[in-house]
């Protein structure tokens, strides 16, 4: 090295001290965006030249044909909750501590043995545990979408949503186990037996099994978020279990149900963002989005899935008549969720059609 030394460069060495490869959705890059955006390699963004290894059947890692919806850039999706692993884990830990603490207290204070016997044995042990199977099935369905999703932000949102369902299923399972241990005389496996054989659950099981077998990842997400959750899960989880539990002396089920409702509301906002994205006329870069074609696909899915989902509501109606204390009539609750669901769909010029 020859010549006189020159001054050192300034702090930052000619470079911004912020990630430059992410276009923030807002004015500044969020912690959420920094945590997930562009972790998924993509041959249409930075990873030029194609995939380095194709599948044995010649397929790419990701296929646009994995959904009927089309968008010029799935990486523009942002989950409105802005949850990333740290904040998601923190939130779910709080929920689970609340449920576990409540169950511990309920057990210690003898609340569980004070439960109405019919409610505990015929409703919770049978139908609530069956509802746990529905949550497990939704987990499996959403899990397929994790593998297929065409961007990292969508993958993370769907991962958290799938794990939500697993958490709900396990909360229900753990409560069921507590009841068996505290009350005695409740045969194991009543819930699974009801899920597999009781006519009140068969249409719901049919819907969930079909969703578990679906292979269009957006269809799974949209049907779960815009039909199964708002209609079936809200009808059964909120209007039956949460509302009926309170008047039947059960302090635990409403808390489990409320934490599940919070997760479902978060998912609904996430699905709204997805639907808004695919039904916008242009993406954030101004590229055209086939909004009309996408809306037609969405309506097609809704038309296809709404009748079986609504049949699942009707099938569950007799359960509303079983408990001693009944705060709401099943038909009225059903009409409420149908009305709310239809209103939700109207936001996007979509309709809830199909016979009950």
């Amino acid at each position: 090295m020859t010549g006189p030394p020159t001054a050192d460069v300034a702090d930052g060495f000619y470079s911004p001290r912020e990630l430059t490869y992410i276009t923030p959705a807002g004015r500044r890059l969020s912690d959420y965006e920094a945590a997930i955006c562009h972790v998924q390699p993509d041959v249409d963004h930075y990873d030029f030249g194609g995939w380095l290894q194709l599948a044995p059947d010649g397929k790419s890692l990701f296929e646009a044909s994995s959904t009927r919806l089309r968008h010029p850039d799935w990486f523009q999706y942002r989950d409105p909750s802005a949850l990333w692993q740290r904040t998601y884990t923190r939130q779910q830990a709080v929920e689970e501590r609340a449920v576990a603490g409540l169950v511990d207290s309920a057990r210690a204070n003898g609340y569980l043995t004070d439960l109405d016997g019919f409610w505990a044995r015929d409703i919770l042990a049978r139908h609530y545990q069956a509802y746990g199977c529905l949550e497990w099935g939704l987990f499996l369905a959403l899990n397929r979408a994790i593998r297929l999703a065409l961007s990292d932000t969508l993958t993370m949102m769907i991962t958290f949503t799938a794990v939500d369902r697993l958490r709900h299923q396990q909360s229900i399972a753990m409560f069921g186990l507590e009841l068996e241990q505290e009350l005695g005389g409740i045969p194991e496996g009543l819930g699974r037996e009801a899920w597999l054989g009781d006519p009140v659950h068969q249409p719901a099981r049919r819907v969930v099994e079909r969703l578990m077998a679906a292979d269009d990842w957006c269809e799974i997400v949209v049907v779960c978020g815009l039909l199964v959750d708002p209609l079936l899960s809200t009808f059964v989880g909120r209007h039956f279990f949460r509302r009926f539990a309170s008047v039947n002396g059960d302090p635990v089920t409403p808390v489990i149900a409320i934490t599940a409702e919070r997760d479902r509301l978060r998912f609904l906002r996430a699905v709204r963002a997805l639907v808004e994205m695919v039904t916008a006329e242009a993406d954030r870069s101004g590229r055209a989005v086939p909004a009309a074609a996408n809306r037609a696909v969405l309506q097609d899915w809704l038309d296809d899935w709404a009748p079986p989902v609504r049949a699942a509501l009707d099938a569950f109606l007799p359960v509303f008549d079983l408990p001693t204390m009944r705060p709401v009539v099943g038909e009225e609750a059903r009409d409420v969720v149908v009305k709310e669901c239809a209103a939700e769909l109207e936001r996007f010029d979509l309709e809830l059609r199909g016979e009950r």
Partner: protein
Amino acid sequence: MRDLDTAHTRIKEYAWEPDYFARNPLRETKYKIPRRSKDPFRHLVRDYMVMEEEKDNRQYGALEDVVARTRSPERAQHRWMEVLKPLLSMTTCAEYAAVKCMASLVDTVDNPELRQGYVAQMLDEMRHTNQETYLIRYLARHAPDPAGFNSALQSRSVNPLIRAARGAVFDVFLNEDPLTCSVQVQVVGEAGYTNAVFVAATEIAAANDDPATPSVFLNIQSDEVRHMANGYATLSALLAEPDNLPTLQKDFDAAFWRLHVFMDNFLGVVYDYFPKVRLRSYREYWEQWIWQDWIGGYVERLAPFGLEVPRWTERIRTDIAWGGHTCAMLAAALWPVHYWRHDTMEPDDFEYLEDKYPGWDRYYGPFWEQYRELADPANGALALSLVESIPPLCRVCHMPAVLPRPDLADTRLVRDATGRKHALCSEPCETLFREAPWRYQCATWLELYDGMDLAEYIERVGLLRSDGKTLIGQPHLRTDERSLWTIDDIRRVGVEIRDPLRDVDAATLPLIA
């Protein structure tokens, strides 16, 4: 819940066999999987969330505290901080691939015990992805040189070496039979290599005054131990079906080779060329973590079940001596296309490398002597001029087809029936190519940019700092302006990116069936 065993059993009883709609997995497996097996990962979601929240608090609290109080990253050894740019952009790729790999396994493997393990691991992998991107951003904010951290997940995609990483830890982790991917990710990647990555890097980082990397990596590694249990449970389940053995052995052989050919050569560069304070050579780490612990402790325990040590293990062990050095030399020669600064080797480095790798001075010493000379832009020549030509890149692994050492290279140049020319770095990569050539048709970095002026390439892929002229990559760590290479210096040198395969007459090459 008072009885955890009962609880773990209970949560698995909500699965059922569908009656109304047949459920086919997204990807079928060629393996037979027992319907029940041992539960490797006994966590309820409840326990998992509480446990990971506490671990998150420790890690993020430490990082935020370190920044607020000590400004430690600024004092870390600059040479070490540079290599975190490619290292972290590689590991995030692997972690994220593992998220989707676990989802695939959950979908395909109809076994409730294994599924519970995969689900928890899926969450772990998302956790690690976010932890590592957090660390990248943290270092962009606090490291001495933010350039390269701030562009890491963009720059990795167009880098000739880290592009090969994508093949090894993303495409290979995902684009297969999910059980084959499990062998890649869990059996070889996690059981074999995570200690070599996360534990070794932690030791070296700490020795080089970098407190941020250890706080993240050790936190991650505490999850990886459970993933190894997942891999072992999967292997045990597969080995319980004797029909699986030939397929499993073949997958195992390929998995070790594919991960080795990128990972060992890359880690050799990281550990032998970037620490200023040195602890052990990569070969020593490899002997401990891969040879003794993984091969000797993990793989050989599977011998009674019929699974043998991977086919190319002896060759791999021999190649470890030189592959990293050859890659380091090529990486240094290509410094203008990197998003990190590739420092010169000083006398104490020479002494260390010759001591750890007898013969190093003879094969690589002259290059590094001249590299130091050419680090000054005033000398008007690039280190690229020190190598005869950039070697072709292997069609399968996309690593330079000159490994383990130029005079020992096992390179094969061939043509296919269409007349397309392919370089294959070795017999193992040729074997993989022959089995399914349609899987390996992606253009190499050299083919993509063949004929492009180097300066044009640098500008096009965003390798300039925000003053619009200084390169992100530099062949040294100096920061006085006169020592910094600019795009004008590169233009003055006038180099064209050239694929050596271009000059080879296809008709002279053997036809590969």
